[in-house]
């Protein structure tokens, strides 16, 4: 077991050593202790695997993984790595297969990840071949535990991780169920290459303090103001969160003007406001719900724009953000059109999210040479607890609570 290399000064959650975003040993420990540790990692949507034999390739941390549906209707996941020499088993992002065969030496696997065939196992004309003692059942890619919750497929390398509903906790479950209460279909997929550590993106997602400061679009059109009715849920582990709010014209108060904040620019109006014209689809009046699951999953409802996001580390200073936009299978054409238009709000070119792609890079570049220094995460106090207000970094502190729990355990 490697020693913890990052020095956390004290047990509190309000200071984060900048070294966590740059230190290579910390990155290696994250792979072992978080991604291959007691966590559930989002793999894909159940809707991505419509038929028996449908598969998708993805990653848990930096480990390549295949997710596939078998004839029994169950979903299986295993490392995308041949037991023989370690080559990828599946090269495509998705497809439909009877089984898998490694291209290198044609070792084959069934849809459950069992090694079923070794080319020339008995040799050729009595020469060569594997030893008689070689037992295919003893060799195969590592399998993941798989859990499907509300159409989300999660995988874990851990035998000890609690069941998915216990891992998420009742409040997070209820908020996932709120959005994924009926069958969905994928309406688009995009990937953003981010010039920063994966944790900076997850912190950004959990940071309800920045949203209406960095994103002018949000504030000006009353989509999200800190003064709107809403709240923040941080689960007991700290690792999962929900930030939610309700569009409310009465919330256009003076608090932004008083701060002299750039984002309060009342001159800014849309010529074609149809991009914001939504429809009510949830009874609770919540028009924005951002939900995260530790370590790298996000479920988004921004007005009628629904998406799941998967954050993957790609080395210490790069990460990948996979967006999957969804609609419900029973959407009317008009509802689908609204979702498509509202996608202008998020994604790589999103009116309210393009900044999130860049700001992590600003931090990553800013902290060069800052080893030994720390970030301040003290807005709203020092706790990682739920609250009604969102001018707080409570869920960011929650992320570090969960992170330190896994890394130091």
């Amino acid at each position: 077991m490697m020693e913890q290399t990052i020095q956390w000064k004290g047990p509190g959650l309000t200071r984060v050593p900048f070294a966590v975003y740059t230190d290579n040993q910390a990155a290696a420990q994250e792979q072992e202790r978080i991604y291959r540790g007691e966590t559930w990692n989002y793999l894909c949507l159940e809707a991505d695997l419509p038929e028996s034999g449908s598969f998708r390739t993805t990653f848990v941390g930096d480990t390549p993984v295949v997710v596939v549906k078998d004839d029994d209707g169950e979903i299986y996941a295993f490392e995308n790595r041949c037991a023989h020499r370690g080559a990828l088993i599946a090269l495509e992002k998705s497809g439909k297969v009877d089984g898998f065969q490694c291209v290198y030496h044609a070792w084959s696997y069934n849809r459950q990840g069992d090694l079923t065939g070794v080319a020339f196992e008995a040799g050729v004309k009595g020469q060569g071949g594997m030893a008689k003692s070689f037992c295919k059942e003893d060799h195969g890619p590592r399998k993941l535990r798989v859990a499907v919750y509300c159409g989300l497929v999660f995988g874990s390398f851990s035998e000890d991780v609690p069941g998915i509903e216990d891992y998420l906790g009742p409040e997070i479950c209820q908020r996932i169920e709120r959005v994924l209460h009926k069958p969905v279909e994928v309406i688009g997929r995009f990937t953003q290459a981010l010039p920063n550590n994966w944790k900076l993106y997850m912190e950004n997602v959990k940071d309800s303090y920045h949203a209406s400061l960095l994103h002018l679009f949000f504030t000006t059109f009353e989509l999200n103001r800190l003064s709107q009715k809403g709240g923040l849920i941080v689960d007991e582990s700290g690792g999962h969160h929900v930030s939610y709010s309700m569009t409310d014209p009465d919330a256009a108060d003076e608090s932004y003007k008083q701060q002299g904040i750039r984002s309060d620019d009342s001159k800014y109006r849309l010529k074609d406001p149809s991009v914001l014209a939504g429809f009510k689809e949830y009874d609770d009046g919540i028009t924005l719900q951002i939900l995260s699951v530790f370590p790298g999953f996000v479920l988004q409802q921004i007005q009628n724009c629904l998406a799941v996001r998967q954050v993957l580390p790609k080395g210490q200073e790069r990460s990948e953000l996979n967006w999957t936009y969804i609609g419900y299978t029973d959407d009317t054409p008009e509802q689908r059109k609204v979702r498509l238009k509202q996608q202008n709000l998020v994604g790589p070119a999103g009116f309210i999210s393009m900044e999130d792609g860049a700001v992590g890079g600003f931090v990553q570049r800013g902290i060069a040479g800052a080893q030994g220094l720390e970030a301040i995460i003290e807005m709203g106090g020092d706790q990682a607890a739920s609250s009604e207000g969102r001018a707080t970094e409570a869920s960011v502190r929650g992320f570090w609570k969960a992170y330190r729990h896994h890394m130091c355990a």
Partner: protein
Amino acid sequence: MIDLLALCAFNASYANAIDSEALEQWPAFFTEACTYRITNVENEKEGLPSGIVYADSRAMLEDRIAALREANIYERHRYRHLLGIPLVESARDDQAVARTPFLVARIMATGETMVFATGEYHDRFVMDGGKLLLAERVAVCDSTVTDTLMALPL
């Protein structure tokens, strides 16, 4: 008939508007009711309708430029479009359908240049009041990955 030369001249002028940072001119290359969408080959192949940018009016394109100028935060950068010769699928007096390959390099404020996007425009041109305009342009990127963000249009 709308000819190849007219399409080439149109594209040269379109690319110049973006690359010379005269972004306010960009919406005027489209009809008032138009489609402009940026997607990638995988979504196209699967028939998935989403776009990184999804607009169905010229006003939405104008809003996008206004947002870039007044609201969005991104590091200063510019593009260089290299457009291929349009592959004309059909052409009449008042309408033409063509595909044009593009390569867009991004030049950052730091001076660094990188290939930002390659792909193909799927276009429907119309003659509107004696002027050639785009009724539809779908920029289908070859890569599914966008580096950092896409602020400027393709």
